[in-house]
């Protein structure tokens, strides 16, 4: 079974600075997808960014980018120019290429200090 580990329960960053959230996963598959979801205090689950394992290029969405290291099974999220609205719980998630089920990490609570 696949596992996803987020080793940082809490992180903090100053407004306008850059922060990186870590995620590692364990799988024997070569075809899979990785996601980062954001959960603000409103409890909504909001997709931040996705990465297909077959793509070597790291995904980018505006201020959000990933560092996907397939051999190391690492999938970190970098938030540039942090804003107060980025404060949230962030979840890393794995999905097998041939399946639909998501496996989530434990989450990282991000605080943005003004």
């Amino acid at each position: 079974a696949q596992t996803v580990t987020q080793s940082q329960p809490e992180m903090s960053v100053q407004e306008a600075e850059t922060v990186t959230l870590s995620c590692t996963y364990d799988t024997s598959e070569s075809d899979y997808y990785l996601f980062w979801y954001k959960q603000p205090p409103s409890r909504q689950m909001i997709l931040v960014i996705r990465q297909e394992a077959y793509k070597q290029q790291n995904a980018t969405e505006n201020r959000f980018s990933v560092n996907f290291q397939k051999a190391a099974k690492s999938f970190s999220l970098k938030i540039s120019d942090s804003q107060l609205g980025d404060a949230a719980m962030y979840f890393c998630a794995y999905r097998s290429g041939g399946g639909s089920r998501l496996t989530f990490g434990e989450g990282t609570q991000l605080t943005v200090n003004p």
Partner: protein
Amino acid sequence: NAGVTQTPKFRVLKTGQSMTLLCAQDMNHEYMYWYRQDPGMGLRLIHYSVGEGTTAKGEVPDGYNVSRLKKQNFLLGLESAAPSQTSVYFCASSYSIMEGQRNQPQHFGDGTRLSIL
């Protein structure tokens, strides 16, 4: 755009009571899921469905039942609620991987906070 709608948003139950959580999606998604979220544990899959009339067990199915009588609805039932089922419950939906939508994410409802005394 409604997306995924969960009913109710909050509920308090006594041990032994039963209840049903309703999830409705208007995106014509084939797949639907129920998760529970507990502190320090992320989201864990309870049950899921890959189409109308089908259901399957996830990671933590004990104490729950589900039904998918209509494509747009997915019901989660607690027959005899226990304090260990106090949690936040999320419903999600997604396209079928057979529809050429393999990279599409799951879409989530806003969650139901359930407390069992």
